[in-house]
């Protein structure tokens, strides 16, 4: 599992964030002494750094510039300063993303996932099929039993999300959150409609009951 380093001076936020990320299954290292941060970072070798811009000793910008000299660990800036100039500066200094406080917890997690995904994609990983179904997200095709169906953007995202959590129950609320992450802004009713269509298409390639409904809990592959 990925290791995330939190550099944040507000103790409440630091502790809560640590707890949150641990619950999400990440390894977390939090910086509590704000001296020689660069050394601490290179010693713990994290996969991702969450960097607050308003630190007591020095500002996050110069810190990030220092990391960039000998590390290519992705950095997400977290700050309460919300101006275009700050963001431009953060991203031009080699930050991978820029989140402003106060953040939504799901949004924060989604951003962390996407930055981690981007950095692991660089090292190359393939999405394996589930129960005989393979997905081609670039072309928008799903195939099984030698047959191929064409999926809409919504159906593709629903299926991808379920396949990512293969075997687990995904609640409707989570599914909607994931779709909103991918800029598909649907409501509960539209999700039902999409689900019905998706099941119909899967049935046509011989995968009936591929997506199981767990009453009151959500969906499961």
């Amino acid at each position, binding site marked *: 599992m990925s290791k995330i380093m939190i550099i944040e001076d*507000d103790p*409440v*936020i630091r502790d*809560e*964030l640590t707890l*949150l990320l641990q619950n999400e299954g990440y390894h977390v290292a939090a910086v509590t002494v704000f001296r020689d941060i660069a050394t601490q970072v290179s010693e713990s070798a994290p996969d991702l750094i969450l960097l607050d811009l*308003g630190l007591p000793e020095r500002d996050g910008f110069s810190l990030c510039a220092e990391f960039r000299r000998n590390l290519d660990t992705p950095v997400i800036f977290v700050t*309460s*300063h*919300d*101006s*275009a*100039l700050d*963001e*431009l500066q953060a991203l031009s200094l080699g930050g991978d993303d820029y989140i*402003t*406080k*106060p*953040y*939504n*917890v*799901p*949004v924060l997690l989604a951003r962390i996932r996407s930055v981690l995904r981007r950095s692991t994609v660089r090292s190359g990983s393939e999405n394996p099929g589930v129960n005989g179904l393979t997905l081609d997200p670039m072309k928008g095709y799903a195939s099984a039993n030698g047959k191929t169906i064409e999926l809409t953007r919504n159906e593709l995202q629903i299926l991808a999300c379920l396949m990512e959590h293969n075997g687990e129950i995904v609640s409707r*609320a989570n599914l*909607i*959150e994931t779709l*909103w992450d991918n*800029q598909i*802004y*649907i*409501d*509960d*009713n*539209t999700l039902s409609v999409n689900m019905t269509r998706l099941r119909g298409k899967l049935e046509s390639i011989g995968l009936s009951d591929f997506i199981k409904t767990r009453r009151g809990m959500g969906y499961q592959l």
Partner: protein
Amino acid sequence: MTIREFLSDRLRRLLFQAVFIMAAAIFLSATGTGMGVLILLLCAWILVLICIQTYDFLKCRAHLSELQFIMDHLDEKYLFTECIPKAGNLYERYLFILTKRAGRSMIRAVSDARAANREYREYVESFVHEIKAPITAARLISRHVEPETGRKLIKELSQIEAHVERALFYARLESPEKDFLVRQSSPAVIVANAIERYRSLLIQSGFRIETDNLEQTVYTDEKWAEFIFGQILQNAVRYRRKEDPFIRISGGRSGSQIAITVSDNGIGIPAHELPRVFERGFTGSNGRSLGGATGMGLYLCRKLSACMEAELQIFSEEGKGTQVMVIFPVRDAESGAGKSF
């Protein structure tokens, strides 16, 4: 200053001169001065008089037009007394000293007020940044409480955030530096960020959002534009209809301009209130009956877009829905990109 004004100003003095000349002429002729000599004398006298008055007039007019010129070319008119040349005669000199004192006290009052305003604005900005840390902490902590309570808490926290955000942009708007950064950006990104900011509000209210044709290029400050779309979305949520609330955000070109339209199927705005929605503090009948309206959202939107030379238009039909159109200015790609204000 015209000759007429000059003469009427000096009327009393000139009349006195005329009476005096007349009296002198009568006295001289009575004491036996010859008619020829008298006429010569009077002509010379009057000629000298006219010369003096003409000289006065020209000098006075030149001086006044110089002052007028200075006034016309001053950006801050109250600095006038600091810029005019020293006066010539005694009377003017005293007047000059008095006006200068008045001007100085005015300048001091203005700069004091400016400094107080700036300090207050800076305080508001730092307050906004400070308060974001406890809100963030509260958001994180709210995960530990029971889900239903947590959702309610998050909703209240979002309300606080929305108010804080408006305070921040209000302070930024009042700042003379207007620190925004116009650069090339895409409405798709701006709209996605605005939706992300209010996603829990939108999801909980059961909204469905369609976006269309937003892959355009506009020149704007992303944060400011995001704030504007955020306000429009908040309004759409507040004034939504009960069943199947829906927002459509679409991009389009009108001529060479790019317009992004946010349409909802909400309760709409009564026609007679529509012209006033951008006024500061105007809440309207919907705002009053639903509560929670500040009358600041659209006011700020219009002010911010005016700064960025964008335009806001609103159309609405009661019971059908509202469309708000944000029209971005056309900019020459080379000169506009990365230009900072």
